[in-house]
């Protein structure tokens, strides 16, 4: 297991967002976390990336318990993510966004930075090249030097993915990557996720789009009211009567 979380709990004021949640994500697979609105999916993602501190439970990533560590340590360990409400660096170009993503692979000391050591120039060239390749891979090559705030919404979703990939994470958390996208854009995301998984990166996606979830995932976890309701293969989960009931029989069957 690449990541195993045990007995995760998180509450806000009097409201319990997650309670006693156990999840395990195997290496090399595409996992999906689904559930009705308010089920705690984004809370789970925030806990697994260190944005929230769990009130109870442990998070074992590659054997190490990361619970309680600050977000940048989760990232340093090899967990990357995208955000439901875009958190693109709008004060930079698209290329610079992706170059920033490579932070955890760059090690430049302050002195070398200020004096512009030749080793830094070399690594900057390599960084730029790697970022350009990533932009090409997500289909944003022509936007490379554009200001990030001039990109359309669909492009920004892909930019966030490229930026997260730049850190070469072992685990990539995608928070509603297809939200707000039309069917053809969603197909592009589908293909992108397959390509990422084919490279060996483990993917966990939170999604409402059931077609995408069924098409692309190997393993599905269903949350409801902050607890794990069901899990297993996509087909099996979609036929589980408890899951159908949780969704009031709407989206899960009809797609």
């Amino acid at each position: 297991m690449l990541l195993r979380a045990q007995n995760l709990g998180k509450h806000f004021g009097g409201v319990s967002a997650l309670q006693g949640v156990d999840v395990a994500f195997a290496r090399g697979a595409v996992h999906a976390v689904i559930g009705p609105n308010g089920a705690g999916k984004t809370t789970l993602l925030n806990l697994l990336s260190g944005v929230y501190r769990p009130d109870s439970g442990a998070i074992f990533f590659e054997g190490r318990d990361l619970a309680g560590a600050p977000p940048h340590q989760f990232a340093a360990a090899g967990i990357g993510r995208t955000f439901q409400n875009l958190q693109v660096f709008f004060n930079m170009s698209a290329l610079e966004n992706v170059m920033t993503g490579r932070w955890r692979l760059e090690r430049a000391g302050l002195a070398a930075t200020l004096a512009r050591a030749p080793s830094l120039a070399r690594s900057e060239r390599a960084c730029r090249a790697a970022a350009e390749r990533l932009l090409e891979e997500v289909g944003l090559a022509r936007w490379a030097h554009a200001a990030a705030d001039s990109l359309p919404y669909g492009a920004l979703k892909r930019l966030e993915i490229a930026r997260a990939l730049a850190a070469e994470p072992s685990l990539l958390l995608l928070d509603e990557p297809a939200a707000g996208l039309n069917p053809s854009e969603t197909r592009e995301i589908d293909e992108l996720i397959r390509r990422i998984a084919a490279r060996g990166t483990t993917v966990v996606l939170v999604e409402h789009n059931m077609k995408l979830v069924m098409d692309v995932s190997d393993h599905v976890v269903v949350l409801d009211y902050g607890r794990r309701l069901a899990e297993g293969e996509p087909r099996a989960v979609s036929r589980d009567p408890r899951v159908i009931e949780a969704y009031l029989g709407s989206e899960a069957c009809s797609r």
Partner: protein
Amino acid sequence: MDCSAAARPNGSRKALLLLAAIVAALPLALPNNYAYEVAILVALNALACVGLNLLVGYAGQISLGHAGFFGLGAYGSAILAARYGWPAWGSIPVTLAGVALLAWAIGWPILRLKGHALAMATLGFGIIVAIVLATEDRLTGGPDGMAVPPLPGIQGEKTWYWVVGAALLAGVWLAQNLIDSPRGRALRALHGSEVAAGALGIDAARHKVAAFVISALFAAAAGALSAHYAGFITPGKASFLHSVELVTMVVFGGMASTFGAVAGAAVLTTLPHLLTVFKDYEMVLLGAVMMLTMIFMPRGLVPTLESVLAAARAKPR
């Protein structure tokens, strides 16, 4: 938004050479010692502003008390030189080291604050420094200030011009090196989205403190040089008004633009000197300039000019 740096990796190199050319050629246009004096003041303010811009423009923090560091740099070197007889090549580096330590120590708790709370904390810091400098008169000469020994071997406006010109170019070079680097992107990322920066492994607190310390050093260096140049220093140099002037120069010139900071310092330092005729109207004019430029050119002088030029170039003729 301004993407010039990474888009044209040689762009900042060219701009630095242009600035060097201006510094080298400017004396040809300076008719007398008074003009040299203004140029020196411009360079000193520009040095402080370049540092402040790293913190405010690139890292997206607020500091309404940066003149405090300017004053500490000035008085630190002045006191070591005047009261303890230290030579300048000792007093200045030691003062800078002291300022760095202080900035590091207060940076950690203060930079956890954001927005108006941070504005208040930095403002409070600046005022505390100004009051302490004015009150400890046995050490600092009190509100009337103290005399400062000159730098050995450096005398006269013309020599000082080259000294501060070189210091400014060195400062701009260092600032550019920081910005065009992974650390520079990390700083800008903090401004863009602190949450996303954390998700990429960037430790927000450490980088903010680093930016704070570096910008404090720029201000302190400018302060120390200005004290030795003028031969005199008063607590007014650490005042809230001076902090406001520095921030205004940065915002007016263009945030997240090193050359904007230089331009802002150049315009706003020279303006009062050009308007000495209107001595009584100085405050009214300064206030009006601040309000009007922020209303009509909110991104600042250099980015607005860049946009205008880019739009003109893109227009089909």
